[in-house]
């Protein structure tokens, strides 16, 4: 009976260890991450903008660096999920095929007239391409310091940083 109990506990432990996920994100799956990474690399090459990570962006904000932050998410998503501090909405569609002149006009209005200003544009997470579409438009319109923040609102919240709601 005692041997049976030990064996049962041992089997349960092995099962738990076997279920633990490993990879880029311990909570996630590797294949979607790989897919997103491929798209991200292609988009960054194509877009001509720079990228900034979560910790670096937080440092910029802590240092009160002059940055215009634009959320490329729909206004309703900003309301529901919150935004990065002092961000302005410049909603972009998920694909270029849905892009309208009104979207472009709204984004350029949010970016302002100073083409040398540092602009950071973000959306939901790494796989989200709204920020790519927006960053590319800004570069095409002569903005010289355009950064895409790929982690977006999900990474920002994951770090426990302040959001505006």
């Amino acid at each position, binding site marked *: 009976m005692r041997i049976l109990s030990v064996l049962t506990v041992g089997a349960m432990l092995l099962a738990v260890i076997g279920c633990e996920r490993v990879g880029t994100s311990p909570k996630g799956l590797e294949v979607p991450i790989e897919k997103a990474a491929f798209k991200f690399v292609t988009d960054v090459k194509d877009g001509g903008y720079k990228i900034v990570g979560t910790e670096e962006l937080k440092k910029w904000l802590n240092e009160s660096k002059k940055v215009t932050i634009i959320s490329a998410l729909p206004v*309703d*998503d900003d309301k529901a999920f919150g935004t990065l501090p002092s961000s302005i909405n410049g909603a972009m569609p998920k694909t270029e*095929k*849905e892009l309208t002149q009104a979207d472009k006009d709204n984004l350029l209005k949010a970016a302002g007239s100073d083409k040398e200003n540092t602009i950071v544009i973000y959306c939901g997470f790494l*796989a989200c391409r709204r920020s790519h579409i927006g960053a590319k438009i800004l570069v095409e319109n002569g903005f010289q310091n355009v950064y895409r923040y790929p982690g977006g609102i999900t990474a920002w919240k994951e770090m426990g940083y302040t959001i505006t709601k």
Partner: protein
Amino acid sequence: MDWTQRQPVYYFGAAMKYQKVLISLLLPLLFAGCQNNRISHDKINDQIDVFGIKLYSDVDYKEINGVVATEEPCLRGYERSFDNLEVIIGYGFDHKIRKIITRNSRTSIFGIKPGITYGEGKQKILQAGFSEYAPPYTFRANRYSLTFLVNGNNTIFGLTLELLD
């Protein structure tokens, strides 16, 4: 008599006295309220002619007319794109359809087909009981939002119908 000393029966008596006036005031309000809620999800779904796709449906579309979907995550769930059909379906985390995007001129929502002018589309959507929400392209009724994707020629090239949270 001071108003603080008046008993409930006094107010009831006053209400009875002005019964006709009250009814004539309340009835139009009642009907106005009914009008605002008159767009049920059945009525919405009856007006969607996009490959049989309906809001709230839990049909797991992975292929439509031989076109296989590509899936992307989003903050509110996930989206399936049917590129050759120019249709995107948005699912919530509950696996129910919460968004339909179409750029296909063989499809329509409230009789609005991609390809018609903004003026025609606006007339149709207002007639359907929607009102302008974020002018000029987004209209809302109850829990539904319809956005026109409009190009430089003032032609509607796509429609986004979304269920609001």
